[in-house]
């Protein structure tokens, strides 16, 4: 049971699909020998969870990429759903990680531990999201949108893909405020003379944790130019800065901002 949970949190899929039920109604393990081996190893080493985490994250299976581009067609045909872990599963960030990432990138996240819980109505308090009240009646609207934990059980978070998530990342005061701050930080770091191209590349790298390829960079540059034209036309104050803020906001809405590959 413990090994199954830890495995699931690293790989995104459990070894026994019914994480909530190891009984007769549950399903059988997908990799019984692996589960057995890990469980025995875990027990023989004094139920040392840290050791189990290390064993998993240093494994060859864990360090594989999640891309299937260029994969052997035979592999793709035989196991399109990656039941055999021939590649990594991309997973969605948990709700708390989404919010904390926004605050962290903006440089405002308070990382100290301890202290009183935060009322769900006080979303502006830049503490880590795990400090929000969480009960049957108290849900943070933002966290709920990203499949916050169930109050009744902690077996497995859902990873939904719903339009409300797009609206929360585009329209919420939290996301927009953090987007503005992230842009300001980038400008500060790069200096005022930085070109749009340099800004776009750095914003991409900072928010998505990988450099843009030429097609991605040119898409960003093109949108930046279009935004500037639009902003100048409506006489917006500081159109260059504003265009960069909207670029940052767009990158926060990129699938890979909330995805761990």
């Amino acid at each position, binding site marked *: 049971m413990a090994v199954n949970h830890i495995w699931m949190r690293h790989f995104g*899929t*459990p070894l026994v*699909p*019914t994480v909530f039920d190891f009984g007769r*109604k*549950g*399903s059988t393990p*997908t990799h019984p020998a692996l589960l057995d081996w890990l469980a025995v190893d875990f027990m023989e080493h004094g139920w040392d969870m840290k050791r189990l985490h290390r064993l998993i994250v240093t494994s060859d299976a864990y360090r594989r990429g999640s*891309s*299937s*581009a260029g994969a052997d067609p035979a592999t*793709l045909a035989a196991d399109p*759903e990656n*039941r055999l872990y021939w590649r990594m599963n*991309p997973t*969605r960030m948990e709700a708390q990680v989404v919010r904390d990432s926004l605050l962290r990138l903006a440089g405002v996240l308070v990382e100290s531990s301890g202290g009183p819980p935060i009322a769900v109505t006080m979303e502006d308090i830049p503490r880590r999201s795990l400090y929000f009240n969480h009960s*049957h009646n108290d*849900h943070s609207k933002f966290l709920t*949108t990203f499949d916050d934990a169930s109050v*009744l059980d902690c077996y*497995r978070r*859902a*990873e*939904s*893909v*719903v*339009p*409300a*998530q*797009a*609206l*929360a990342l*585009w*329209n*919420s*005061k939290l996301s*927009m*405020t953090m987007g*503005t701050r992230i842009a300001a930080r980038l400008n500060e770091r790069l200096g005022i003379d930085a070109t749009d191209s340099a800004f776009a590349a750095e914003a991409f790298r900072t928010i998505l944790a990988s450099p843009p*390829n030429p*097609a*991605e960079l040119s*898409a*960003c540059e093109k*949108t930046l130019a*279009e*935004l500037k034209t*639009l*902003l100048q036309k*409506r006489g917006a104050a500081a159109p260059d800065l504003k265009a960069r803020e*909207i*670029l940052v*906001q*767009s*990158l926060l*809405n*990129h*699938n890979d901002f909330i*995805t761990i*590959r």
Partner: protein
Amino acid sequence: MIRRNPGNPAFSGAGIHRRRFLADMGMGFTGLALGAMLHGDGIARASDGIWTPPDGKPHFAPKAKSVIWLFMNGGVSHMETFDPKPELNKYAGKSITDTPYKGTQDPKKLALSRVVVVNDANGQSRLKLYPLQVGYKKYGQSGIEVSDWLPNIGNCIDDIAVVRSMWTTDNNHGAQTQFHSGRHMLDGEFPNLGAWVHYGLGTLNDNLPQYISMGNREYWNKTDGHYLGPAHDAVPVRVDPANPLDYGHPELDVTDAEQKLGFGLVDRLNRLRGVEYPDDPTLAARIKSYELAYRMQGSIPEAMDFRNEPEETHRLYGIDNPVTRDFGSRMLASRRLVERGVRFIQVQDGAGGAGVWDAHGALRANHSGNCARIDRPIAGLLQDLKRRGLLDETLVVFCTEFGRTPGTQGSDGRDHHIYGFSVWMAGGGIKGGVVHGATDDIGFHAELDRHYVTDIHATILHLLGLDSRRLEIPGRKRLEIDHGNPIREIMA
């Protein structure tokens, strides 16, 4: 208000190189549904390989396309609405045990109740019979008796099938959850009917969410999808064109044109990622969900904007009258959503406390007032759907968690009553002007053709062309009673 162009050129789909990714995106709604499902339940993908998620098509020819689910929170008295019992007047003030109906108190029959709170102040036996608080008369060609508090719905009775023989088991308001999910609250949390429908059927309109809820629900759990996943939760909307959705428009300054460029960039960048991750269903689903999100910002406010509806329609729904305006607006919004292609609309009437219909005291004032709020709007909805030819493909369901006791609580109220109560259905595939099932002559027990709440679910699913057994997920075994049986007697 933000207005958006639904034919948005920002999503031109440029940048797709890989054939596989193109195929995934070409699946239309399944792009969203499939991704959400694969990741929503997690159990399915690792099971034995035989099971596949629903393809969004009905299992057999449907009679109805959409459902408008009207739920009256608190418990509507069946005797003062759709199941009048003159015997209550005859024996008013007498204890049931002193009347010919003392057999209703047979402990075996009363064992149906599954108590949550022992010695709860409510949900008790009330033996002293309370007379009908309102008169009734026969309506329509069918001559079905309806309360004098509901004259307008009465006039629609020839389109309605009344089921007078419902029963449930939770004698407190957890029965609200039970009516939606089919399970007593002590069993845990389960997907509700709307979530099953959303899970089983594809979209009618790419611009609108397919499962929408209006009105607050306070007494039952907040989510709909449960183990089907949050992708199958209803999207809550408010009948307020300026602010109908959570995060429905930017909370800080950005114009529509600017945001549209941003959405376009996100779309392009996500599609470029598809080159490297051609087999990632979540990425495909996210691209789809962003398209819907962008369109919803315009389509939902548009559906909630009644300015172009004629005066006559406003009057038909009672929007011109302060008493009926609120519920009437939700009914008109429901029609507009059905018309635009929304699959399941869940309307909750009167949350707050245990629900506004919960008349433990002053039943006459409570129910006459509540009936006045909903009578004109619901009749207006039925008439409007009918004259637009929408009633044939839209199921309208009127339901509540339980009925109220034939005996009195205090001097002028009725308590919760699980042993017999009424609901009705109209529209797509339903026979009009029929009464199905019956309670005994004091309205205590459902006696003839008894139905548990899941029989209503089964009837609706059947009319939508779905077989609930084929929707079942490995590892989430459902019981016979969860599936229920369609009530064939009320089907056209």
